[in-house]
């Protein structure tokens, strides 16, 4: 294999087919940027899940003396100190439980006042309307059902609430968005593939004289196909490089500069540069392999031995 000869053939092919090459580069860049982007979005969601699930707890609300009339579980009146002690000791025996906080009605009232400070109607509630509750931190947040089945409906327990459920709606939305991104990605990849196949066909057609002579004088099919495959791979590499640039720029624009989400939404821990950089080699590999394989299979049909 004479490298210089192959390289000059590649150069000729790319120049001859400049507009199509450009189209391939752009569509590979866009589809890969989108692929990388939706991958990163999924990472971000699972990142956020871990971060939030760490903070959320299961709350066991206990009966208060005013609940008796309107809550079926509390028909026997307020929770007794014995019941409370029993629940607490049962809780601490469960292996999934990491930590138990007890919240008194007074504390609950304080939290409530802090949370809704300055809002109208804040004084409608009084401390004696608040209730005792246990805030339970689980070793594995997925194990919520263990708590709920053990304590829901026990005497003195008003309700068991998993805060994770509140977050699940949000994560459902985010997941849905990543699926949409994946669908667009699949569409873009198809377009990119079709463009590559077409470009290779045009390229093979415009060089049919050369390839005809190559066959005639006994060049191996590898030698004949190599320039075309390398062309596609090169276009793919440039497209992949652009996609990497877009991902890095996208992260900078969304999180640090431009929209400055990091300083605006401090509750969310965003992906770091390391997470983005980890995806880039994958983007480049796909960027090179996808067009090369497409070219290879196209040529099998259009450049017979």
């Amino acid at each position: 294999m004479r490298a210089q000869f192959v390289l000059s053939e590649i150069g000729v092919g790319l120049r001859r087919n400049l507009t199509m090459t450009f189209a391939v580069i752009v569509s590979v860049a866009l589809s890969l940027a989108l692929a990388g982007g939706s991958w990163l979005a999924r990472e971000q969601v699972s990142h956020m899940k871990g971060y939030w699930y760490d903070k959320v707890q299961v709350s066991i609300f206990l009966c208060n003396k005013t609940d008796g009339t309107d809550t079926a579980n509390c028909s026997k009146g307020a929770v007794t100190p014995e019941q409370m002690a029993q629940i607490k000791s049962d809780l601490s025996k469960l292996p999934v439980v990491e930590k138990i906080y007890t919240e008194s009605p007074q504390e609950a009232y304080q939290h409530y006042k802090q949370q809704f400070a300055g809002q109208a109607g804040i004084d409608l509630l009084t401390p004696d309307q608040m209730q005792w509750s246990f805030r339970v931190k689980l070793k594995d947040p997925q194990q919520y059902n263990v708590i709920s089945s053990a304590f829901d409906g026990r005497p003195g327990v008003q309700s068991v609430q998993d805060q994770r459920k509140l977050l699940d709606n949000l994560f459902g939305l985010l997941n849905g968005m990543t699926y949409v991104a994946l669908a667009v990605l699949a569409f873009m990849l198809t377009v990119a593939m079709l463009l590559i196949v077409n470009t290779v066909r045009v390229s093979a057609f415009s060089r049919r004289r050369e390839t005809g002579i190559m066959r005639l004088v006994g060049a191996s099919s590898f030698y004949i196909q190599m320039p075309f495959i390398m062309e596609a791979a090169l276009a793919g590499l440039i497209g992949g490089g652009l996609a990497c640039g877009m991902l890095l720029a996208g992260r900078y624009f969304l999180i640090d500069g431009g929209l400055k989400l990091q300083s605006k939404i401090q509750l969310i821990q965003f992906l770091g540069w390391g997470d983005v950089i980890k995806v880039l080699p994958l983007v480049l590999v796909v960027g090179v392999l996808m067009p090369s394989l497409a070219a290879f299979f196209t040529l099998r049909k259009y450049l017979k031995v």
Partner: protein
Amino acid sequence: MIRFDNVSKTYPKQNRPALRDVSLEIEKGEFVFLVGSSGSGKSTFLRLMLREERTDTGAVHVLGKDLNRLSNWKLPHLRRQVGTIFQDFRLLPNKTVAQNVAFALEVIGKPRGTIRKTVPEVLDLVGLAGKDGRMPGELSGGEQQRVAIARAFVNRPLLLIADEPTGNLDPQTSVGIMKLLDRINRTGTTVVMATHDQQIVDQMRKRVIELEKGRLVRDQSRGVYGYQH
């Protein structure tokens, strides 16, 4: 060298076979004219030798290889030992004479030193010394065919297949090309040439194989064209 055993070939969607039960043998170092009217099967005969086509029945042996059994990846190695020239020369218009010839060596991976040495030699042999920097468009038809012959011969093939090499040339130029082919034949290269050129066949007095509607109708050593237009 070349052997056809009861070869028949019908192209798809055609009811008349292009070749019908053709058997013959061509020895090493022979010069053979293949004659016949258009559609007689000459081109199919040549294409079968290059394995551009496969036979329906029968076998074609070239350089000791059964072409029906030759795998695709071994085919290029066979073609390196077979030179081919055509009526339309098939040169690359954007490469110089020397580059056209060198191309044939480059694409089979010959080292650059060999190419630099062999190309001028073969251009000298075909009578194009000093024209290596010209573009094909600047040359006459006869000279272009000489470039094509140089390209076909640069790898010193054992067999040279010529498909109407003088079809686009005037009689005087054709004589020059035939002298060149004769010289190549004398180096030991077998030459198989399909032609319509009565004058050339009658002058050369070589073996003549005539095809008519796909059948072998004449095989004559030191023959004449014989076929009337």
